[in-house]
């Protein structure tokens, strides 16, 4: 018994070591944001700031209005996640149940939709959106962001739906459910883990998206934080202290959200395991 408990704590130690090592660059970002400009590039590099310099944080909160940027980021990411899932879930479900050449072709198309780097996609999308009057609007950007995450969501959700036994569905149908009803009442709960994970990933992908937002939103008041970050990259100089502070402010809310939502995610994951 004792050995088993000790074994578990040993695993915790190993896990903590792995996590700490992996997250070191993130620590470096936080530490850099608190260093003075001269210390930032000093050799030998200092692990801890020799003196905490909050000038960068003061700057981004007072002069750059980082809160507004973050609000935009959350708005765009949240809405995109919702729309993406709304479109992807039915599609992935249908693809998991329907097996034919056409569906295979469709899946191929979905895969291919993700190939082009956003930098190359943006010019034609910009042209198209301008014709449709969608530039400089939240709707336009969300639409573009959905095109980016929709193929991903479909590809990820399909295997999850595959793992849900047909029998469950058929049982519900026998009980008088329509196919759609069965989808909502039986399939979605069964694939909850995958959906939650997919939602998280789509949210994070969109939260960190830069190219579409930068090109389709020229009004500063509407821009998300990823674009705001570039306000510190000048023509010849880059303001690294402010960049790191801004990036820290950018990442922290999501990390906090994560920590708060851990319970939900953990529940989702372990629930799926008990079958």
């Amino acid at each position, binding site marked *: 018994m004792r050995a088993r408990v000790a074994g578990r704590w040993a695993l915790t130690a190993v896990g903590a070591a792995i996590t700490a090592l992996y997250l070191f660059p993130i620590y470096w970002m936080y530490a850099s944001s608190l260093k003075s400009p001269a210390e930032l590039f000093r050799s*030998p*590099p200092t692990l801890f700031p020799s003196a905490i310099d909050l000038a960068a944080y003061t700057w981004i909160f007072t002069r750059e209005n980082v809160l507004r940027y973050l609000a935009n980021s959350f708005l765009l990411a949240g809405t995109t996640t919702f729309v993406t899932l709304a479109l992807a879930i039915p599609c992935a479900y249908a693809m998991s149940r329907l*097996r034919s050449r056409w569906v*295979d072709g469709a899946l191929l198309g979905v895969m*291919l939709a993700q190939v082009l*780097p956003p930098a190359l996609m943006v010019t034609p999308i910009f042209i198209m959106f301008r014709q449709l009057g969608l530039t400089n609007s939240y709707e336009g950007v969300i639409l573009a962001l959905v095109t980016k995450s929709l193929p991903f969501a479909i590809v*990820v959700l399909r295997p999850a739906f595959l793992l849900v036994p047909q029998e469950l569905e058929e049982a519900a149908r026998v009980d008088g459910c329509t196919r759609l009803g069965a989808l909502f009442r039986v399939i979605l709960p069964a694939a909850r883990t995958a959906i939650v994970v997919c939602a998280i990933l789509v949210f994070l992908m969109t939260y*960190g998206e*830069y190219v579409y937002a930068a090109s389709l939103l020229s009004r500063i008041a509407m821009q998300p934080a990823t674009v705001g*970050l570039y306000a510190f990259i000048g023509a010849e100089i880059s303001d690294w202290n402010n960049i790191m502070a801004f990036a820290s402010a950018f990442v922290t809310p999501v990390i906090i959200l994560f920590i708060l939502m851990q319970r939900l995610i953990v529940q989702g994951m372990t629930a799926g395991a008990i079958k």
Partner: protein
Amino acid sequence: MPSPARTRTRFTDSDALLPTLVAGALIFIIVFIGYPVAYNLAMSFQEVTLGNIRDFARPFVGLENYQALVADPLFWPVLRNTAIFVITNVVLQVLLGLGLAMFFLQDFPGAAWMRGMILAGWILPPLVIAAVFKWLFASNGGLINEALMGAGLTAQPVNFLSDTATAMATVTFTNVWFGTPFAMILLSAGLANLPRDVFEAAQIDGAGTLTRFTRITVPLLMPTLLAVTCLCTIYTLRAFDVIWGMTGGGPANTTNVLPVWSFQLSFQQFNFAQGAVIATMMFALVILVALLYIRSIRSELRA
């Protein structure tokens, strides 16, 4: 052992619904992605300059752009760099992701927390990741060299990003760091969904850990594994920001990969047509990968 899937479902009357659901999302994709793809494809066959980029009817030059690109001295090096970069990344990300997923699936205090925290690495803007790793890998003043020399492992600093021999490995390392949480979390979800009873039955039957892994876990996880591998391949193929931020394709084009070269051609050298040719080639490459994926899912297992 689970039985292989049936390759056909029974169709009932209400199955007009299913194709409709598929069609909805597909039309969306075709319109908003099909147009950019067609745009690039058309450009690759035309002569495109700043003067005529606004027009749709530009001079048609057939395969001239393709020939010029293949004849460019950079073509084969870039293609080779891309192959190395993509294959190494995919293999490492999937293996590490799987390893981490399995590790954190175990029941020990803080496991779920840590797994969530690792995902934090994926949130960082690529600009920041490139900058931080560039600093960490610097020849003079970089923390990694400090650590290596301090531990006595090397006498001289390793020129991670300034040496043609190590630059590719360094950007690969950074990209693996960046992409592994993604693979890890998807594989975690897949692993969590696996039916426990099969494992228990195998354990009772006396199957060892390795046997359980290879004979049960991997086959059951196959759909997710394949999806993750395919996605990883596509995302790495088009990965631009990390390499651009760290080396700009250098030194001396040793980290120049297809998306970087395409960007340089289109937006630095105003050679839009050749930039579009690269986009088309990337497309063709991915068609191969995606076809493999589609073929492999034919033999998918069902619960």
